[in-house]
């Protein structure tokens, strides 16, 4: 058994929100380590990212009561630039061969006052999304052996319901509090510079540009406060810098993590490679 894993947001996303092989792979990966560390930054990223998408779609579905309109909303958000993915997803949803709506005789549905089979599928989907969201939040701190690097500027508030919609605020840090990430990084300015230098300077990816800018700002002007967006742009760099030397960073985003980890003499590994 490997010693300690420093767990990235992609792993908890796979376990909490996905099913099938992807879910199993990540769960199994965690069990291969004696100890697993999850920084609170990963929980923050999870809530502001994948979980927020689920909440958005749940609420969109409630208000539009229409699958095509809900999926159009997903497309507009550019959650996937690959439109074929959304089209396939819509097909799968409409097919829903093993759902309640496909397995409830229409006369039975009418007997219970269901307007049409669509209302059954609607409620199935709505309840499933709500269940996934609420369970994900409850389980977030129970996946790993340890929760590390607390963020005192960030309040972990459970999603609640109001008028049938899910409220997921806050997803950002408290503006009145001192930035905890800044405090964590200020004693590691050499590491901050090394990680910044490891990001391809010729990359035109928005994510890389923003990350380089924020990392530069931290080591050049360590007393300057970080804004909420800056905290988010740090992303993968946070894991590389905060991961203790004797840990391995567990992530599915190997392409971005590996060079950053390598710059600090650390390593990143994908669950399939364990």
């Amino acid at each position, binding site marked *: 058994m490997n010693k300690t894993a420093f767990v990235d947001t992609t792993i908890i996303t796979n376990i909490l929100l996905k*099913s099938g092989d992807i879910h199993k792979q990540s769960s199994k990966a965690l069990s291969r380590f004696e100890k697993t560390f999850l920084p609170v930054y990963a929980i923050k990223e999870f809530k502001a990212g994948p979980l927020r998408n689920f909440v958005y779609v749940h609420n969109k579905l409630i208000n539009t009561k229409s699958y095509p309109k809900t999926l159009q909303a997903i497309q507009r958000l550019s959650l996937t630039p690959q439109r074929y*993915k959304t089209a396939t997803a819509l097909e799968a*949803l409409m097919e829903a061969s093993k759902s309640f709506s496909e*397995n*409830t005789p229409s006369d039975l549905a009418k007997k219970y006052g269901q307007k049409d089979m669509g209302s*059954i599928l609607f*409620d199935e989907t709505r309840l499933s999304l*709500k269940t996934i969201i609420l369970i994900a939040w409850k389980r977030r701190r129970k996946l790993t052996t340890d929760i590390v690097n607390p963020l005192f500027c960030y309040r972990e508030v459970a999603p609640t319901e109001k008028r049938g919609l899910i409220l997921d605020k806050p997803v950002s840090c408290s503006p009145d509090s001192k930035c905890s990430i800044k405090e964590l990084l200020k004693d590691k300015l050499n590491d901050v510079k090394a990680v910044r230098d490891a990001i391809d300077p010729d990359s035109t990816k928005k994510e890389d540009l923003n990350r380089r800018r924020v990392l530069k700002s931290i080591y050049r002007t360590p007393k300057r406060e970080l804004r909420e967006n800056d905290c988010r742009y740090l992303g993968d760099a946070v894991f590389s810098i905060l991961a203790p030397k004797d840990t391995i960073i567990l992530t599915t985003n190997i392409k971005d993590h590996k060079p950053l980890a390598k710059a600090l003499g650390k390593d990143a590994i994908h669950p399939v490679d364990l």
Partner: protein
Amino acid sequence: MTETNIIQFDSYKTGTDNVTQLVAQIKDETEEKSYETAPPMDTASIYSNAGAVTSHISRALVLLEEGKVYLSNAIAASSNNDEIDSDNEVQHFYALLPELFCCRDIGDGFGAIINAIYNAITNQLDSDILTLGQLNKISQLVIRLQSEPFLEIDQAIELIIELEDTDLNIKPQHLEQITGILSGE
């Protein structure tokens, strides 16, 4: 003019004063009445006035009772290593879940649990039969719904987590691609 009882302190200490005795007598009578037992009420009779609560509650309770019997049989068969009989009973239980879901206007807690159980069994159907532990957990959820059909969503979520912990997948197959997109695949 108000009459006041004057109690000798020594009598009070020994409990032989009139007031203390009177208080004790009243206390005994009250306790006797509060311990009178009424015949236990079953859930169905509490909700017998279905029209006032929901038109579906009484039917849901009947279905849950039927479901409980199937599960009980499945558990017994599983305990005797009779997998075929156990799975057969599960099929009967599974067949009444769509009608139970039709009663979901009882509340989101109710609907979420039925939905989760349905998805759990659906996802398991393709690969394996339910284990004894899984059957016991589903049975516990059904019994809980019988006694608390209006349970809140938060309570339902805790129960669904317990169901997941028996290694059952409660996520519906038709949402797999959507959840993949939303998770940033």
